């Protein structure tokens, strides 16, 4: 059968229309997409713990995996990309000296010295930030997570001074302008000018019985679980491998462990 160019273009046009109809919205997209929104049923089986914790196997990370984990977090939580001193970071990397300044090994092995370390909020068992917050905007919930209530934050930044790990960032400017419009996760709020933000250990994912996004993206290089439960995944790893924490002498009892 001979097909003219005109017929071919017509057919191609109709096919393209059909393919894009689902996203364009004139073929009942409303009902379809509404199913994708988290509903009450998604929260039926939350993951529960007394103190959530994390073990990071630092040897398994390279630059590509760092980027994957950081992007998974920052893209999903609408963390703005700002350069310089006003940077907003939930999860980031640092060298050994910056990550573990109290370790002071005199002759550090080369592998560890040149390695980067993935840093995030430690969700300390005894956090300093929550003690200094004058409005109880940040507090420790009964799952052991250090949570921010942005509605109540007055932007005094005491928590940033209190946190020994630099895990908190202040929104000096309206973050909306620094989130790429095509990357905005519409199902998750962003923050406003004048509040402090930080990692939440993906409390909204845990409530759906899922793992934090960085742990999922890490492909096994990060292990997550209940530190109070001896049978949990994290405790099993900690039983076998020697792991250190950042600035343990600050007395905050951090919940993120690093295998060197």
């Amino acid at each position: 059968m001979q097909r003219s160019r005109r017929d071919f273009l017509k057919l191609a046009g109709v096919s393209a229309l059909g393919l894009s109809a689902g996203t364009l919205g004139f073929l009942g997209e409303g009902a379809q997409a509404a199913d994708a929104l988290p509903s009450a049923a998604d929260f039926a089986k939350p993951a529960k713990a007394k103190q959530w914790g994390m073990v990071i196997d630092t040897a398994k990370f390279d630059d590509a995996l760092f980027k994957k984990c950081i992007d998974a977090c920052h893209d999903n939580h609408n963390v703005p990309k700002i350069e310089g001193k006003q940077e907003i970071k939930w999860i980031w990397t640092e060298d050994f000296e910056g990550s573990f300044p109290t370790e002071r090994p005199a002759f550090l092995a080369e592998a560890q010295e040149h390695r980067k370390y993935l840093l995030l909020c430690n969700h300390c068992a005894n956090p300093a930030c929550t003690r200094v917050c004058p409005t109880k905007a940040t507090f420790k919930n009964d799952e052991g997570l250090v949570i921010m209530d942005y509605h109540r934050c007055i932007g005094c930044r005491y928590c940033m001074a209190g946190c020994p790990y630099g895990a908190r960032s202040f929104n000096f400017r309206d973050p909306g302008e620094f989130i790429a419009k095509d990357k905005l996760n519409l199902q998750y709020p962003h923050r406003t000018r004048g509040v402090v933000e930080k990692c939440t250990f993906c409390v909204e994912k845990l409530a759906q019985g899922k793992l934090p996004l960085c742990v999922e993206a890490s492909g096994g290089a990060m292990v997550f679980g209940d530190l109070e439960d001896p049978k949990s995944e994290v405790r099993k790893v900690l039983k076998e491998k020697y792991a250190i924490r950042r600035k343990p002498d600050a007395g905050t009892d951090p919940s993120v462990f690093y295998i060197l």
Partner: protein
Amino acid sequence: MYNGKYIIPGLIIFLALVLFPFIKGAGLGPLKVETEKPKNSKECVLKTEKMRDVHMVLLNEWRDDVIRNGKRVYTNESGKQFNMSLTNTCMGCHENKDKFCDKCHVEVGVNPYCWNCHNTSPLKKEGEK
């Protein structure tokens, strides 16, 4: 009355000014605002009248329950369950903020800052139709 010729007209002018809004509004029915109703669902979390009165209280309670108490599922009077989320539940149905939320808020002159952080729709970007 001492200085009555100033005081009485003064009082009348004062009362006229104070009562002007009431006189002007007398006889008019209750304030009616036409909002765009959701197309995909008929039933809201609470009854319409109740929602009109207390949606802001409900949102505050939801916020405290979700953030402070870790409770994320709301069960209404008829036993239907909802995910307690402004963006994903409320705005998921009421997909056009300009034609729903803003209609009343503008009419009565309130300016809630919910949308400084919360997206106006879980499905569409701001301004997208």
